[in-house]
């Protein structure tokens, strides 16, 4: 019986095995190896041998053009100068803020007696929109003569948020607001399903124990929601590290201009393809992978103590 099933099982899996072999497992190995190849050229499929320099160059530890005179050897790359700080800011601003806001909305929604379903649907709408399209809408909102400046009473080019001439920090605020806006629905939905799973008797117990509303929230609701919070935290950290669509949607081309730079790590990786510098891109991708893995690992490790299952 089991023997007969043996080949049959693999037959059912054949489509995904073939597809994953070509488009998942092979690329994984290939990207790893390209990351260690010197001057890899994907069009000619040539390389000058094994090297660790790609990582060093991406991280700004080695000169990008060793043949040039010393004073022209750029050590600090765009990755170090822009992509890593930008990505870090996006990650560490949007993730905590969006989790707190989503939690507040979910708890609020859970406590209101009427219109719960309608609000729930409203809060979910951003999930079903196109991030590029809505990014363009936010670009209109944050135009120097747009509604945001109008409401702040600061119309005019000198108050630009994202247009030419705007400083990086203002563009970053606009970007973070957009990212938080678009990441709320998923989090709210997850938190709501988590809240629905909390036994009502813990709230009764908290009432009997004379705990106030805020205390109940902090000492009962949040700890009992910790599995959902951990899940949302991990997924949104990963998402924030890879932020790209929202940048493109809001800013068009996020490259450098005179006053601001919204380069991100993932943008750099894609950029290397058109520049035929994929060995740098691969190195950056491997680094991104390691960082994500480390972050997920740390969160699981921390959660062992903090998360109640």
């Amino acid at each position, binding site marked *: 019986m089991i023997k007969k099933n043996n080949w049959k099982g693999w037959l059912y899996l054949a489509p995904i095995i073939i597809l994953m072999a070509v488009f998942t497992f092979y690329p994984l190995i290939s990207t790893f190896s390209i990351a260690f190849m010197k001057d890899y050229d994907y069009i000619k499929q040539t390389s000058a041998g094994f090297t660790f320099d790609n990582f060093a160059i991406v991280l700004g530890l080695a000169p990008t053009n060793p043949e040039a005179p010393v004073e022209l050897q750029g050590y600090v790359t765009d990755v170090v100068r822009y992509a890593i700080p930008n990505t870090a800011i996006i990650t560490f601003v949007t993730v905590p803020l969006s989790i707190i806001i989503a939690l507040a909305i979910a708890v609020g929604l859970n406590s209101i007696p009427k219109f719960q379903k309608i609000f729930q649907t409203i809060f979910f709408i951003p999930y079903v929109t196109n991030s590029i399209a809505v990014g363009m809408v936010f670009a209109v909102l944050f135009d120097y003569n747009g509604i945001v400046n109008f409401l702040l009473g600061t119309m005019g080019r000198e108050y630009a948020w994202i247009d030419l001439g705007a400083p990086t920090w203002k563009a970053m605020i606009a970007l973070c607001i957009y990212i938080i806006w678009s990441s709320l629905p998923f989090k709210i939905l997850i938190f709501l399903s988590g809240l629905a799973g909390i*036994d009502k008797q813990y709230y*009764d117990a908290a*009432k009997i*124990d*004379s705990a106030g509303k805020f*205390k109940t929230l902090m000492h009962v609701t949040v700890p009992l929601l910790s599995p959902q919070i951990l899940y949302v935290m991990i997924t949104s950290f990963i998402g924030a590290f890879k932020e790209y669509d929202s940048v493109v949607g809001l800013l068009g081309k996020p490259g450098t201009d005179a006053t601001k730079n919204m380069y991100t790590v993932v943008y750099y990786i894609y950029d290397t393809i058109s520049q035929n510098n994929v060995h740098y891109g691969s190195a950056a991708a491997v680094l991104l992978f390691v960082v994500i893995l480390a972050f997920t690992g740390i969160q699981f490790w921390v959660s062992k103590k903090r998360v109640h299952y």
Partner: protein
Amino acid sequence: MEIRLKHLTKIFPGNPKKNIPDTHAVEDLNLTIPDGKLYALLGPSGCGKSTTLNMIAGLSEPSSGEIWFGDEDVTDLSPEKRGIGLVFQNYALYPHMTVYKNVAFPLTNLRVEEKVKDANGNDVLDEEGKPLVKKRKLTKIEIDKLVRETSKIVQIEEYLWRKPSQLSGGQQQRVAIARALVKHPRVLLLDEPLSNLDARLRLQTREEIRRIQKSTGITTIFVTHDQEEAMSISDEIVVMKLGVEQQAGIPQEVYNEPANRFVANFLGTPPINFFHGEIRGNKIYIGDAMVKEITDKTLPDQKVTVGIRPEGIVPSEKGVLPFHIDQIITQGRDIIIQGDHPLETRPCKFVVDAFTDVKVGDIHCEVKPHKCFAFSLEGNEERIA
């Protein structure tokens, strides 16, 4: 503190669209629960006893009626302001907190009242001449001492640093009691506290509850469907059926003088035996056998249900009631005899002590008059004799 329930009623609305009628969980309940006593709400499931408890706790809002704690009407007061302790049926211990934190949690929400002292250590008086009192939060040290003091009473000191999931049912139950007791509540409420325990632990724990109640003197109300449990530890009980009070009083009195057939049937193991009977000339008959003479009043001749407690039937040569014995169950101290009365379809059970000489077959039995009751066939089947 004395608790009074006045015309307490709880109606769960049905759904007229789906033809679901309203449920009357509790109807016009009037009870006085005396100060410092252990009081049991007893009845089969669905009798409204848990709903009553939840209304006393404030977790459920009465449809009408009032709840008084001492001389305060607390009907509309929310549970967090009532100062009660409640042990939930499933304990509802916070799963993410250690036992210590579970017990300490209520204390973090309370204040301690202290008299204000002046520099010489004398009480400061207010305008009316009463000592001035000040409220403050408890310190960590005070919380720790109170937690330890309570843990000692319920004997959970060894488990303070464990999570509830690492405890057995009995231990969890004690933690739940500690959490309810630690804040020195005005009232302690227990909702089926023993239902999740195994038989042995149940016996042990109910003695424990009794002991704790006696040592703290807190007015305690506890809900159970187990009549033995209620009878054995409570000072007073009330028997409920379908939301309506049947009888309240001291357990032994309720057992000895049941108000109606339901109460008689509900109390006692093995349960009371019922026979078709009648009253003729102020005497109670089963068939032709006269089982009891009514002396304290005069009743008209009528058909009745006769109930005889299992310990009220005694095998005897000169007995009047004929039985056919099917089965004899020896239980060490007692023997339970199962037999058929020729006029009844349901078998009867009676209890005799272990040295009684009985055999399977036909015998005659005597009836102890004070273990024999007559119930009306009408209305609520009240006891008439």
